[in-house]
């Protein structure tokens, strides 16, 4: 099997691989967007408990 001939698609490489590339990117992108949505949901449903450490205070101590 001649791979460079295969990838050149008889001179139509841009059109053929472009078509499948766009399809692949969009479908994988859709799945990634859903994973992101899942993370956001999980964060909203189980928010991290706020720490009691007053962060501002520590920096002020340095000034004093």
């Amino acid at each position, binding site marked *: 099997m001649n791979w460079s001939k*295969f990838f050149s*698609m*008889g*001179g*139509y490489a*841009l*059109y*053929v691989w*472009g*078509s*499948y590339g*766009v*399809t692949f990117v*969009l*479908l994988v992108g*859709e*799945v990634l967007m*859903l994973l992101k*949505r*899942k993370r956001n*949901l999980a964060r*909203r*449903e189980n928010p991290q408990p706020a720490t009691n450490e007053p962060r501002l205070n520590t920096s002020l101590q340095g000034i004093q």
Partner: protein
Amino acid sequence: MSNRRINWYKYAAPANFYPRAGKMIPFFAVPAVILFIVGMYVGFFVAPTDFQQGESYRILFIHVPAAWMGMFLYVMLAIYAGIGWAFNARLASMMAQAIAPTGAIFTFISLVTGSLWGRPAWGVWWVWDARLTSTLILMFLYIGFISLQSSIDDVRRADRAGAVLALVGVINVPIIYFSVQWWNSLHQGATISKNSFKMAPSMAAAMFLLLGACWLYSIAVVLVRLRYIIREREQEAPWLAEVAA
């Protein structure tokens, strides 16, 4: 004969549907990936070169399934939106909302791959003929449905407004489908029809394998999105705390 009957109303309740849908997703997602790989193999290594179009015709294997999915998903969206509106069934409205992005993506894929095919086959990226224009309108209908729903804060009002748009827009689907018969078009006629089958068997096999992959992919992705929509909309419901944890 069993006397047991499926109580469909039971699964119309998001609380019952949510865990069941979660279990179903892998049964669609895994075969989708397998069919996609097999379809690509048949499409690129088994199907012969076309005597008229050379290798460029291989765009067909994804272009035709994407175009069919775009139309089919729109009809499903309109049916679910209509059911949600007519019977005040919130799960059906959520289903319509879950279908819309996937349908828009497939319609977009059909437009882009069509353009990439049109350039070598017709010499132009785009023409304003009936098939292409009506498909572009389908794309705008999806975008319109999504933006209309997201622009209204009250979700049930958003569902009703979306349903009106979806049901009016459904008239566009037969226009797309029959456009190549009703008007003169650069676009070729139906590849698969009742009386003629204009493809080598391996070409048809590649196309139907990718069609199957697109179908299963759509079901899996829509179910995943539907579950997230349920969680977003019903965050206050006590049942969610039990199943979503």
